[in-house]
């Protein structure tokens, strides 16, 4: 049951991306192209998502625990650090250059465009590299 629900979550996420055209990098880059072929769609996607998630999260976290887990694994940090800003800045550049981010890239992967394949390959490598550097950095503290 648990596995089925998790699978469904992933499917829903993917369908949401496909339905909204977010798995099409051209649509994403056009949102970011304020002075060119601007397409505001992405703002509506994010708006639609937050409109559901904000009340949804509030309701769901009222319970003492999730259905299939013992505790809620919610981020607790409230500080701002260089890592957050730097990471987001770097991420944003890549997002603008490629029009892909992790969710859409993985959703588009089965469509097997050459560009998608190479993006995913270097994305996963970049993730592993970041983990490695962070681990080494934090071990020296």
């Amino acid at each position, binding site marked *: 049951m648990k596995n089925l629900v998790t699978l469904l979550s992933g499917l829903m996420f993917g369908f949401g991306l496909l339905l909204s055209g977010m798995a099409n990098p051209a649509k994403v880059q056009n949102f970011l192209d304020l002075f060119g*072929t601007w397409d505001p769609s992405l703002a*509506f996607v994010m708006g639609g998502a937050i409109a559901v998630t904000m009340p949804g999260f509030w309701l769901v976290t009222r319970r003492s625990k999730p259905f299939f887990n013992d505790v809620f694994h919610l*981020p607790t940090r409230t500080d701002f650090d260089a890592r957050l800003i730097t990471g987001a800045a*770097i*991420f*944003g550049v890549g*997002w603008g250059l490629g029009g892909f981010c992790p969710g859409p890239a993985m959703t588009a992967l089965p469509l097997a465009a050459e560009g998608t394949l190479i993006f995913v390959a270097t994305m996963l490598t*970049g993730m592993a590299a970041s983990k490695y550097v962070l681990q080494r950095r934090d071990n020296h503290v």
Partner: protein
Amino acid sequence: METEFTPLLSLLGGGLIGASAVLLMATHGRIAGISGILSRMLPPTGKDQSLPQGLIFLIGLLLAAPIWIVINGQAPLQSVSNNLPLLALAGALVGFGSVWGNGCTSGHGVCGISRLSGRSIVATLTFMSTGFIAVLLLRHVFGG
């Protein structure tokens, strides 16, 4: 190339993404942050209890397009650049940056903002800004 502004489909698709995030929170108590889900599967891995469920979520994500093709009889509209070196660079930056910055558009942009997380609001504003600048440079300065 131009793309069509699709307000209704965008809202619906976004709502579906939101529903997925709420479902994941209700069932597993976790943020639907794709960069986190993916990176936890990559080395160096520790004893992460979320790995099996993360993998199942990923499988669902990967099945969406094939099922879409079966339902619609054709692949979704897509326009991916064939500038492979550019996409290789973009991927590396997205991968590195998302892990370094503790999240991406789903983790910070959707889930974090929905939780009114100051960190996520700042992160989102930051990656939106550099995203805008990157496209400005790419399309209007370097003509890429």
